[in-house]
């Protein structure tokens, strides 16, 4: 039972995602009938599952939500912006309730009540007719709302006389593929009243032409029931789109309450093979508006795309696989090293085999990483909710624009991005966007915009969070930093340097602590969370036009393409993505700059020279660098630095092993890896190294310590 329950909640997540997608489409005005059906089905499925587990609060809310959605589905209510926004908050509450049920925590009524009330208003518009629906439609469709309720109360009031229905039902192959069974549908129908079913086998081909996996049978049923068409449609809800369905009042008798179910099968009207010809014949009086609407939609529906089949796997199993592949990569490195050591001839079969093995390892690794990758969509949807809540809290109107939702990122990254992104979204709304009055005064649209974009860029994932607000008030930041003694009062800082002050611990520009932000958890926490993922964060801001934060993250947390270099007899791995080019340093290109610094002339551009050995504290600066190997390392912000190493050894994939678990973060170092000889090599974090070497992003007090040589230099045995 617990397993089924767990499966239900996992399914709920998918359904909620579908629901939000649909609502987003409705909000953007892109909704068609199918979208509304999808939204409706998602809520309906959650309700159904929740009922099976006795989750009453969830069922109750889902039912109300579903009823409200049905108003739109049946065309009785227009999905105006207001209506959709009620639905959106409905989906938020539904998500809360699902979460609450999963964890056994009750969702406070105070949260649910306003949304429930709003939904109720949609279901039964107030008498004064203030609702969007106009009067005539209300009158027209009022009966429908009643009949829906009936089917939920299960007992049919005696008032409605039973009438006959002819039901044509022809399953598509996909119906069976989805695991449905027509028998159960008929059984459910027979519960509504006396039922006669006849099978139509006219579509069955001769035996030698028969494709056993294709559906070729159809059924005609005649039912006598006091229930409405909607009740019958409900039974077919779950095969909607998987069959051709044709429900119409029986023409033989309208007062046919006395029809005996066991009289010979009702006359087979024109072999029921031609099902979707109904709209024309729908009698105006008795047919419910819903049925022609929906049925009319059906023929136009494209043949359902066979869904890609998927398997749910425990994350733990995948992680084990990832670890094993990591070991495989190390093992392969060791193997190549020992083959090298054995002095095997370059053309020998062993070499060729190894080459192939290398390729396979890489393929396996890529495939395994793909398993872990997930689109960022779920994360963005969560942010959508954060944004709505934050905007409502603070009374600003904000719209979220997302791009690149299908960009795939490692699952762990997605999970660990949620907190930093939440914080940044709140910041954007609270600090980034101006209040509506200011916006109006500046001639900006009063609705603020927040952007979330994800994309792949040169082997990394870039996620951008932007707003169209006021931009960073650099004067104020500077003053604040001077106030707090973070920078000297007379220091001159470039714009980007001022922006980076935001990342200093405890830096908050909010003059008052608002409900949303300004409680001391600042951008420094965001930055360390991003750094822990091997990522970097940068700001760009234009006064009056807004601020954009970009987060750049590695594609995977497990493996890295690196260049293996030697410096001060230590082996260091430099991420290949960061290296723009490698070159030998000519004496002519080296220029002295300050008393202790050099720059290198690379194609008439001066680039600061960094000695990796000295930066890491492995040796004192060499002083003379002519003839050394240079790695030209580029940074996100377009700047670059030339890093001196002693030799380049190899270029290979390395498995990332965290240092932080047992030790902690090491400045300038991203992680460690195990080389072919079993030794550990450190993986460089070029951006961190460069920023620390320049003294950027460090408080002046701490800066000298960062750049001084550490006594660790003398440690080698």
């Amino acid at each position, binding site marked *: 039972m617990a397993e089924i329950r767990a499966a239900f909640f996992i399914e709920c997540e998918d359904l909620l995602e579908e629901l939000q997608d649909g609502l987003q489409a409705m909000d953007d005005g892109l909704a068609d009938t199918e979208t509304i059906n999808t939204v409706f089905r998602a809520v309906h499925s959650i309700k159904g599952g929740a009922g099976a587990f006795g989750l009453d609060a969830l069922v109750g809310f889902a039912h109300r939500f579903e009823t409200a959605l049905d108003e739109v589905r049946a065309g009785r209510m227009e999905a105006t912006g207001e209506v959709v926004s009620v639905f959106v908050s409905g989906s938020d509450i539904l998500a809360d309730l699902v979460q609450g049920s999963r964890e056994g925590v009750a969702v406070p009524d105070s949260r649910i009540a306003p949304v429930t009330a709003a939904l109720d208003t949609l279901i039964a518009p107030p008498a004064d007719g203030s609702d969007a629906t106009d009067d005539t439609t209300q009158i027209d469709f009022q009966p429908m709302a009643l009949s829906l309720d009936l089917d939920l109360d299960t007992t049919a009031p005696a008032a409605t006389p039973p009438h006959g229905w002819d039901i044509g039902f022809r399953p598509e192959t996909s119906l069976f593929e989805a695991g449905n069974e027509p028998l159960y549908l008929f059984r459910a129908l027979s519960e509504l009243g006396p039922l006669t079913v006849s099978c139509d086998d006219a579509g069955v081909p001769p035996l030698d032409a028969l494709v056993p996996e294709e559906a070729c049978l159809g059924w005609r049923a005649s039912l006598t029931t006091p229930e409405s068409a909607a009740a019958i449609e409900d039974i077919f809800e779950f095969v909607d789109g998987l069959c051709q369905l044709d429900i119409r009042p029986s023409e033989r008798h309208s007062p046919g309450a006395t029809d005996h179910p066991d009289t010979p099968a009702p006359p087979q009207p024109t072999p029921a093979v031609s099902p979707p010809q109904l709209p024309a014949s729908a009698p105006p009086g008795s047919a419910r508006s819903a049925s022609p609407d929906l049925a009319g939609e059906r023929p136009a529906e494209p043949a359902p795309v066979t869904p890609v089949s998927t398997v749910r796997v425990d994350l733990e199993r995948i992680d084990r696989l990832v670890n094993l592949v990591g070991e495989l990569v190390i093992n392969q490195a060791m193997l190549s090293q020992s083959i090298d050591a054995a002095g095997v001839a370059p053309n020998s079969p062993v070499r060729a085999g190894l080459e192939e093995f290398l390729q396979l390892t890489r393929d396996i690794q890529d495939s395994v990483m793909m398993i872990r990758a997930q689109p960022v969509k779920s994360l963005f949807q969560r942010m959508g909710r954060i944004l709505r809540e934050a905007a409502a809290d603070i009374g600003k109107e904000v719209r979220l624009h997302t791009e690149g939702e299908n960009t795939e990122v490692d699952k762990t990254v997605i999970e660990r991005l949620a907190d930093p992104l939440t914080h940044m979204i709140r910041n954007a709304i609270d600090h980034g966007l101006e209040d509506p009055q200011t916006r109006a005064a500046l001639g900006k649209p009063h609705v603020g915009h927040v952007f979330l974009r994800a994309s792949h860029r040169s082997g990394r994932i870039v996620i951008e969070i932007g707003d169209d607000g006021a931009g960073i008030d650099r004067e104020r930041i500077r003053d604040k930093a001077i106030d707090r003694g973070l920078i000297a009062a007379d220091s001159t800082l470039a714009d980007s340097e001022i922006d980076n002050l935001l990342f200093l611990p405890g830096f908050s520009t909010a003059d008052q602590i608002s409900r949303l932000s300004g409680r001391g958890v600042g951008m420094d926490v965001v930055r360390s969370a991003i750094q822990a993922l091997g990522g970097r964060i940068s700001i760009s801001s234009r006064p009056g036009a807004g601020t954009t934060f970009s987060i750049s993250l590695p594609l995977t947390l497990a493996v890295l393409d690196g260049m293996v270099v030697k410096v001060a007899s230590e082996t260091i791995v430099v991420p290949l993505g960061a290296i723009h080019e490698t070159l030998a340093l000519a004496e002519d290109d080296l220029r002295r700059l300050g008393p202790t610094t050099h720059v290198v002339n690379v194609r008439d551009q001066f680039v600061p020279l960094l000695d990796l050995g000295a930066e890491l504290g492995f040796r004192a600066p060499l002083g003379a660098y002519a003839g050394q190997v240079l790695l030209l390392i580029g940074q996100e912000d377009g700047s670059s630095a030339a890093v001196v190493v002693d030799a380049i050894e190899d270029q290979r994939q390395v498995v990332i092993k965290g240092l932080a*678990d047992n030790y902690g973060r*090491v400045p300038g170092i991203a992680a*460690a890896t195990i080389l072919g000889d079993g*030794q550990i090599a450190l993986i460089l974090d070029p951006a961190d190294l460069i920023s620390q070497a320049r003294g950027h992003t460090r408080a002046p007090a701490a800066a000298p310590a960062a750049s001084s040589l*550490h006594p660790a230099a003398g*440690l080698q045995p």
Partner: protein
Amino acid sequence: MTETPPQTTAKPDAPGVELLSFLIGDQYFCLDIMSVREIRGGTRATPLPHAPAYMRGVINLRGVVLPVMDLARRLDLDTAADTGRKVIIVVARGERSLGLLVDAVSDILTVPEAALQAPPELPADAGRSFISSLAIVDGRMIRVLDLGAVLPPTGEVAA
């Protein structure tokens, strides 16, 4: 090259604390055996940049990156010349594991709780704070190491 300690002084029938004793220079120290995971021969460690001087670096322990601390340096003690015969005691505390580089492992001792005495206050001796108690076994003074105090605090490492 794990050294098998001679079992001479073990008294298995007496209730008490089991301690692993080891040598740094000519001084005997010991650790609660429950915190010891394994003992392995000293290997070359990859030095960590910007690390305190007592951090020897990191080694590969079956695929895990294990930081190794030079206990002699941590305790400010003279140590035997590096002959390559040093031993790494792998200890675990909570989620963290750490290797302690010592000169030699000597013994497993069972010491009755009553025989452990608190070290006397000697403010001048900075190393004292690493010792949680003292005991006399076979006429030798054994210093029981306070593992919590010896391990580098994570905050210091991140600085």
